[in-house]
């Protein structure tokens, strides 16, 4: 239950509250460059979501097993705990660049339709800061925490990355929709192009700031719900265990 709540909070946080584009300013190059039309913007968004999930999987694996201080694989090989975190950045960028190449080849060979939909955007994504930023966020939660119980698992990392991609898609699609209409407007000559896009993005960021605190409210609602239900269920179980094996079945039936 707690795990599911934490996943939900990570998802909401990554997609809406701390939107990668509008809160952290990463992935701005495609946000400006590919947001001219709605369909290409959506294609770019889905390509980023796809690559960011793969990069998150790879970087979590690397960080958890090899790079973090006292990681199992390096300890096994060296015979003592090592801290390889100085190699973090080099390995991340290497992994991202090579995985994008492989993904592009794989998609072109086995999913021609998919390739036609977003293949042209794949190489561009290598230098997309959003991907590296997701890896760095995961690194922060895997190798930067002292409390072993707070270290992120693969599930949390994947949820973060996937919903960050969704958030990027939402932002870039909204932007493309606005820009399509903006083409028909009489914008002052000096602001045409990037200038007005930034101003619109600023207003969008203002709107997305309205999501601040949603995670806290959600957590309160879900956790309170969980707490109020948990003792009751415990009480039922206690009652039933007193009456024997039949009671156990009754409790299960009652709960369902």
């Amino acid at each position: 239950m707690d795990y599911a709540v934490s996943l939900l909070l990570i998802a909401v946080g990554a997609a809406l509250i701390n939107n990668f584009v509008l809160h952290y300013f990463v992935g701005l190059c495609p946000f400006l460059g590919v947001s001219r039309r709605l369909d290409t913007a959506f294609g770019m968004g889905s390509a980023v979501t796809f690559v960011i999930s793969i990069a998150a999987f790879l970087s979590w694996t690397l960080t958890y097993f090899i790079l973090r201080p006292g990681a199992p694989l390096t300890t096994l090989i060296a015979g003592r705990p090592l801290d390889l975190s100085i190699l973090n950045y080099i390995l991340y960028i290497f992994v991202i660049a090579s995985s994008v190449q492989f993904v592009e080849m794989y998609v072109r060979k086995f999913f021609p339709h998919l390739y036609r939909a977003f293949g042209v955007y794949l190489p561009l994504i290598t230098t997309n800061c959003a991907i590296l930023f997701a890896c760095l966020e995961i690194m922060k939660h895997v190798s930067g925490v002292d409390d072993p119980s707070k270290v992120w698992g693969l599930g949390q990392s994947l949820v973060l990355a996937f919903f960050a991609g969704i958030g990027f898609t939402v932002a870039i699609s909204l932007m493309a929709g606005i820009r399509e209409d903006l083409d028909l407007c009489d914008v002052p000559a000096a602001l045409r192009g990037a200038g007005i896009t930034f101003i619109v993005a600023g207003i969008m960021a203002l709107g997305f700031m309205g999501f601040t605190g949603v995670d806290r409210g959600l957590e309160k609602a879900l956790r309170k719900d969980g707490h109020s239900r948990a003792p009751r269920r415990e009480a039922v179980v206690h009652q039933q265990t007193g009456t024997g094996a039949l009671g156990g079945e009754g409790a299960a039936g009652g709960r369902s």
Partner: protein
Amino acid sequence: MRTEDGPTPLERFIRGILPENPVFRQMLGLCPTLAVTNNVKAALTMSAAVLFVLFSANVIVSLIRGLLKPHLRILVFTLTIATFVTIADRVIAAFMFGMSKQLGPYVPLIIVNCIIIARCEVCASRQSVWHAAADAVGQALGFTLALLSIASIREVLGSGTWLGMRVMPGVWPDWVIMVLPPGAFLTLGLLLGLVNWLGTLRRRPAS
């Protein structure tokens, strides 16, 4: 266009500052431009890090330009850059711990900063070391100029201070929105408009 006997090192240096300003003209390296400009000190630290990385990467790439294979070019660039970014990151963490916490992931994000890759690609991989070095310093100063102008506007309006010193009168109501993300977008949008407008003003009498 850009051949060995193109612009001299001095021309390259000057060109990077205003005529080919990486932020206002080429629209490169926008993540740090927006993310670290809520106060001037962070912007200056970021600029120094970019100057170091850009200079070192440009010089190294220019030195090994004869060995580069076309298909592995970008990978070599990024790995070179990543090495220097690691150095910069460790130095900042060692000597300016608070600043390193404040800049957070934006120092490692220099790796994928388009300015550096673009300069390696356009200039350093085709020019001599002197050209590359002058180009790197010029571009980095242009970047500093852009960051400094945005950060000054945001810090003065948003917290009433400049580099930590109080400049606005005490009654000034801080425009908190300026130090928050939307302020960054609005400032950069309006500044771009201003730069374009000044450009057209200057061009009109000439033409």
